[in-house]
């Protein structure tokens, strides 16, 4: 399983864009990169997944450089309800959750 490294915490204000970068230097050729969001007292929720370049959905964008050794989750115009823990996971059906990034959005 590829190990991931992401910041422990990030602070932001409403309306700003939040970018969380995840490092995964030993990503395998077949591995996808997936991001999850977890609110307190809830299970993680799938946000976005990508293999290379850029992926965008109604919630976020995911940027993956050509070497795929890192990825950046971009949350546009965050609101207070985006305060959560964000996890970056790589590959395999057995998910290995790291510590995640606690994003705190302030008014």
């Amino acid at each position, binding site marked *: 399983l590829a190990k991931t490294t992401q910041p422990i915490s990030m602070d932001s204000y409403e309306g700003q864009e939040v970018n969380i970068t995840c490092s995964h230097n030993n990503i395998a050729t077949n*591995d*996808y990169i*997936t991001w999850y969001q977890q609110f307190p*007292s*809830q*299970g*993680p*929720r*799938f946000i976005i*997944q990508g293999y290379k370049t850029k992926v965008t959905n109604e919630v976020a964008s995911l940027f993956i450089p050509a070497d795929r050794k890192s990825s950046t989750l971009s949350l546009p115009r965050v609101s207070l309800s985006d305060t959560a823990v964000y*996890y970056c996971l790589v*590959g*395999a*059906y*057995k*998910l*290995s*959750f*790291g*510590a*995640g990034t606690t994003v705190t959005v302030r008014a």
Partner: protein
Amino acid sequence: SAVISQKPSRDICQRGTSLTIQCQVDSQVTMMFWYRQQPGQSLTLIATANQGSEATYESGFVIDKFPISRPNLTFSTLTVSNMSPEDSSIYLCSVEVRQETQYFGPGTRLLVL
């Protein structure tokens, strides 16, 4: 996507007893997973449960402590046996809907006294 429910949502148990947690999915899925999330911590995979075969346990978790059943493609149970306060956690089940994407249940919050 998949809709996943868990029962009970929470429970308070006495040490030495056992609790069985149920996980129900609204569609047939091959792979189901059980995780534990201790207070303030990240998720730790307990085991993978495939229908028709024995569950596969991760390092540090054993069948005697966490027996799992997977009788069909929409249901699984996890039993936490001979509980101690250290077993106080949130227990989550998840299913793999497509490659490398899992959907999680709401979790079962367990407190052992």
